């Protein structure tokens, strides 16, 4: 279990202090695939580097299985890092070593015998699906292949935790999906806890079980992907989940409600039944639905007629539908 307690990180800059992280509290349980999303500059990369103390937080504690990393002496911290693997956007492979030697690297560091390291490296090459690239140099590989080698190298230290820092952001959509599949597969087969840093909701949608939303160094909300996607509670959350749908700032109507679909019911004819069963003619102002882990999630903004009676009826009707929540959207905030 990874537990972040009151993590703050302040960078001194020429223009004064820059507060990159502000009192972050987060729990990531063993076996989770935990997404940390935010726009660029939100502090995601700093946060993930606080987990293995590549960045030392200005304040707070980083507990891994109850052990406070910040309190460890340098030597033990270095040892501890060997159980926390990391992959990067730019892969960061050693360009002058072959793929096999790259995968051997963490074992070499940890003092594994060369013959044994080689043996295991070949197995990891197999796991990531590149058994024929042992003798190739990274420069000879495509981006997706390089990331596979980086993943194999990450696995070679036999980690409990895998940190992915924008690991698919430099890849094309198809390769991204393949790499995400591989990470998911590793999580399921080897039980490695995965922390995914990304600015793409698609990545979270694809593999994460939990997600935290970070904005300007502040943790806005965290929860299961289902919760956050069906009904983001904060502005930052909504901006990320529905980036171009449902911006209600420009809507004139005051009688706006947000209907959130939470699994399965996205494609039922709710609006039609609302009109037929209650006689309320709702106007769809915006809608966005997503498919998360095989279930449909989405939210829809409806404009209702200017009649308190009809509004009450409509609210009542929707509230009684399964897997749907509804809330009135007041003026000016969303």
């Amino acid at each position, binding site marked *: 279990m990874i537990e972040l307690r009151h993590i703050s990180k302040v960078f001194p800059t020429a223009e004064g202090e820059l507060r990159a992280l502000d009192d972050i509290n987060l729990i990531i349980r063993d076996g989770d695939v935990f997404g940390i999303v935010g726009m660029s500059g939100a502090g995601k990369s700093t946060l993930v580097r606080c987990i293995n103390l590549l960045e030392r937080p200005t304040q707070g504690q980083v507990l891994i299985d109850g052990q406070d990393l910040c309190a460890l002496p340098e030597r033990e911290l270095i040892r501890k890092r060997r159980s926390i693997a990391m992959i990067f956007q730019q892969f960061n492979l050693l360009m*002058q070593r072959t793929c096999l030697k790259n995968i051997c690297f963490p074992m070499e560091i940890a003092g594994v015998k060369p013959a044994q390291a080689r043996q295991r490296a070949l197995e990891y090459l197999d796991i990531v699906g590149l058994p024929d690239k042992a003798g190739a140099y990274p420069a000879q590989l495509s981006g997706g292949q390089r990331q596979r080698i980086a993943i194999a190298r990450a696995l070679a230290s036999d980690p409990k935790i895998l940190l992915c820092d924008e690991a698919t952001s430099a890849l094309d959509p198809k390769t991204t999906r393949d790499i995400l599949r591989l990470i998911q597969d590793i999580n399921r087969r080897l039980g490695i806890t995965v922390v995914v840093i990304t600015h793409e909701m698609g990545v979270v949608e694809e593999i994460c079980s939990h997600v935290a939303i970070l904005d300007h160094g502040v943790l806005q909300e965290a929860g299961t992907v289902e919760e956050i996607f069906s009904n983001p509670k904060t502005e930052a959350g909504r901006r990320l989940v529905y980036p171009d749908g449902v911006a209600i700032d420009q809507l004139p109507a005051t009688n706006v409600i947000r209907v959130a679909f939470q699994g399965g019911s996205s494609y039922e004819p709710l609006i039609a039944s609302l009109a037929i069963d209650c006689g309320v003619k709702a106007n769809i102002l915006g809608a966005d639905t997503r498919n998360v882990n095989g279930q449909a999630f989405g939210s829809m903004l409806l404009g209702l007629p200017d009649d308190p009676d009809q509004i009450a009826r409509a609210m009542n009707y929707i509230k009684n539908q399964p897997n749907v929540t509804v809330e009135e959207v007041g003026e000016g905030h969303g």
Partner: protein
Amino acid sequence: MDKFWNDLAEVFASDRYLEEFLTGTWESLYSTVIATVVAFLLGLALAVLLVAGERSGVRPLPGPLMKVVNILINILRSVPFLILMLFVTPLSLILLGTQIGTVASIPPLVVAAAPFVARLVETSLREVDPGVIEAAQAMGCTPFQIIRKVILPECLPSLISCFTTAFITILGYGAMAGAIGGGGLGKIAINYGYHRYNLAVCLVATVLIVILVQIAQAIGSYLSARVDHQGKTRKVRYRVRLNDPARQEETT
């Protein structure tokens, strides 16, 4: 002009000159090789100190120490070589028991070249991708492991280039050392050309130095390209493309 042609003819005809040039070339070569190896090792150590020891380096060292090292290197680099050589000759006396001759010119060459090599190597060490160093830190490398297993191997091709440049520079310095008691081709060029107005001998000695430089550069460039797997140099990239036609479209 007639004197020049006569002299030149004599250079090629006489065994005495042949022997002198052979000895000179040999002296230049071995003093340069020894001086380069020692200066390179010293310079490499200094460069590692500069890069690893700075505030954002892998093993930060106290600021004042770094400042002293920096200033020392700058001072040694700014003193003209001939002057430095005069200052350092007592060192030769202490180390080798003599102040004149080819061997005696080695310590001043080392002292003059090591700071230069340090700056040269420093630049190439800084070119190692910080991301790769970060990855190594994340994997639990000690600072020493990062230097030995990441930074140095990753810039091996450029270290070889540095070595080549150092060799050529020291060869030039060595020729200058000929003016004040050093041996080698430089001594021949100065003794005959400057002191005896025998321009033909001077010319041949100079041509020999040029040839040595060309050979050194060719070997250095070849080795550097040979060990580089990053595909930076044209030759290697070409070879890679030949092996793997799919590479071109994949790397975009």
